[in-house]
């Protein structure tokens, strides 16, 4: 029974929150757009800093570093998504089984998610992947093999591993709650009808997990498009591990070319929106069904 009056009162009361959120989003966005059309070199005050039209945009995409960076970004996002989803389903299935010390095991599985990205990257870099003092190097040497230089020879694989390790708990957690909400009677009925485990998994469990998986997909993609700390700590963008985010960082902070970097930022927004649009479609379909 919302009258005209109460509706406008509600709007009025929501106004501060909406204004704040709009400001939160719009101010940085508008500043990025503004800078992206200007020549803005903070370290060179002696040269003219004015409007340059689309110069920054053209320069950013025509640079040799642009397409490889987009490619690397998509490989990392895709790789991490694939690993976390597949292993996440597996882990969720295992954790769903009744076992001794279930609570403790679950806490341990979730723990990596609470380690800060910089810290976990440092941990992996120095304790596991280091070719001289790392754990893997010791194991390989004990087996009589030459240690592998993970971060320089297999930089993308190493970064995907680190990021997957961080995000696997998140995927597991969401998928585990989804599995727990699955009606056990359905499974029992299928079993009685003679369905074996693989077909029960494919025809009952997986479809039931579909919605949770799209949620994982969507949330992770949003965060993974912007991963930075892991690259900054491990390879600093060398050995073909420069993502779009890292390229923008290099343009703005290392080269101190704010205009060019802002143009890159606008491209990143566009890329994120394209990816998000695709994902929203999938989610939308899934949620309707």
């Amino acid at each position, binding site marked *: 029974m919302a009258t005209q009056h109460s509706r406008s009162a509600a709007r009025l009361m929501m106004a501060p929150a909406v204004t704040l959120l709009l400001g939160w989003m719009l101010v940085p966005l508008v500043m990025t757009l503004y800078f992206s059309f200007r*020549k803005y*070199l*903070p*370290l*060179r*005050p*002696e*040269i003219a800093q004015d409007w340059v039209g689309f110069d920054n945009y053209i*320069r950013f995409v025509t*640079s*040799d*570093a642009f397409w490889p960076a987009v490619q690397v970004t998509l490989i990392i996002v895709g790789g991490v998504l694939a690993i976390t989803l597949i292993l996440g389903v597996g882990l969720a299935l295992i954790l769903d089984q009744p076992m001794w010390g279930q609570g403790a095991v679950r806490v341990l599985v979730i723990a990596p998610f609470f380690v800060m990205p910089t810290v976990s990257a440092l941990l992996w870099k120095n304790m596991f992947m280091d*070719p*001289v003092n790392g754990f893997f190097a010791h194991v390989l040497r004990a087996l009589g093999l*030459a*240690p592998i*230089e993970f*971060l*320089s*020879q297999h930089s993308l694989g190493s970064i995907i591993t680190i990021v997957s390790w961080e995000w696997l708990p998140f995927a597991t957690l969401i998928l585990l709650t989804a599995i727990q909400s699955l009606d056990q009677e359905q499974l029992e009925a299928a079993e009685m009808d003679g369905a074996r485990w693989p077909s029960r998994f494919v025809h009952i469990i997986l479809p039931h997990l579909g919605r949770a998986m799209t949620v994982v997909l969507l949330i992770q993609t949003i965060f993974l498009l912007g991963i930075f700390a892991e690259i900054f700590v491990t*390879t*600093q*963008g*060398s*050995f*073909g591990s*420069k993502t779009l985010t890292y390229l923008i960082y*290099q*343009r703005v*902070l*290392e*080269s*101190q*070319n704010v205009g*060019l970097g802002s143009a890159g930022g606008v491209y990143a927004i566009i890329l994120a929106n394209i990816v998000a649009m695709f994902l929203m479609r999938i989610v939308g379909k899934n949620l309707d069904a």
Partner: protein
Amino acid sequence: MYLKNAFRAATALTLITAGAAQAEKITVATVNNGDMIRMQGYTAEFTKATGIEVEWVTLEENVLRERVTTDITTKGGQFDIMTIGMYETPIWGKNGWLVPLNDLSAEYDAADILPAMAGGLSYDGTLYAAPFYGESSMIMYRADLMEKAGLTMPESPTWEFIREAAAKMTDRGADVNGICLRGKAGWGEGGAFITAMANSFGARWFDMEWKAQFDTPQWAETINFFKGMMDASGPQGYATNGFNENLSLFQQGKCGMWIDATVAASFVTNPKESTVADHVGFALAPHKEGVEKNGNWLWAWALAIPAGTQKADAAKQFIEWATSKGYIEQVAAKEGWANVPPGARSSLYENPEYMKVPFAKMTLESILTADPAHPTVEPVPYVGVQFAAIPEFAGIATEVSQEFAAAYAGQQSVEEALAKAQALTTDAMEAAGY
């Protein structure tokens, strides 16, 4: 009632801030290396003498650069003193972002600062930052392994000699690599080393028209020589080794030779940290046969005051204290002459006590042979040995060194790396309007 309480709280706050303003407090941004951290231990003495409190913000080198650069370009005013290097000082001084240090007290004796250091920290003849310590680079080598290989290190060796010696000293079975050098990406890491090395092969970054020079035979020779020597006699994974990695390799006895910062000499000869402390010899950084430039750089960490700070006087007092002769004597008395900040003052090298330190003479000689105003064989439009003092250099050189590191790791050929370096440097210089 509430209002009254709020008033009281506000009054209390005002009083606290007023109180703090009386006991003046300066904020110093600094880098996390040994000499700077040692200085923090002596801060209490400064506070006792002047009543000025010091708050330290200690950061890793790259993070420090970003923080202070952002602060100075946006006029953030977070710091009253910034620790900056020889690269930033002339650029910032030129832009008028630093308080000139041309009025330091007579007792401070600014004329005592080594001319090479004062020159690199000035713009247009005005000093903008006071050096806390200075360094060049030199060869540190294992005298015992050199003897075993049947060789004698000359005072000023050629690259050819170094390559041969490295091959002879390498003993993979005993985990000894003939030579350890920086391959790590980053303009202050592998970028600095390869630039200084290129100078000694007759290469240069830019010609007089600011055109990138990576398509010249000198650069191809430099990178091919470096990669060839390191593949044959360097440690595994050298493409990711920087100063700290090499330091630890050398201290563990895993390197025959190491060409790096002169300040490292005090770490490798310290028996508490180094297993090879008794066997270290020093020589001038190498040069190519027939090229008169050596591959040694010149660097100083210095203290500067950003223009616009309200506490310029207190900051100046602190700088005079931290970079004074008195500070050096204080450290020497407590921790020995080998631990004083080196490379800043002439008087230190006139002190017979200090000259007894094994690496003092070679450090001074290395500093004196580096010439930031004429770093290369062919003329260049820039100042700086292992860098070009233009704002764009840090960004460009970091990316260039990443291409080189990928070539060291075997992900691309040297020719590809040089072609990419040429393209990206040309592009960035165009973007900056050269």
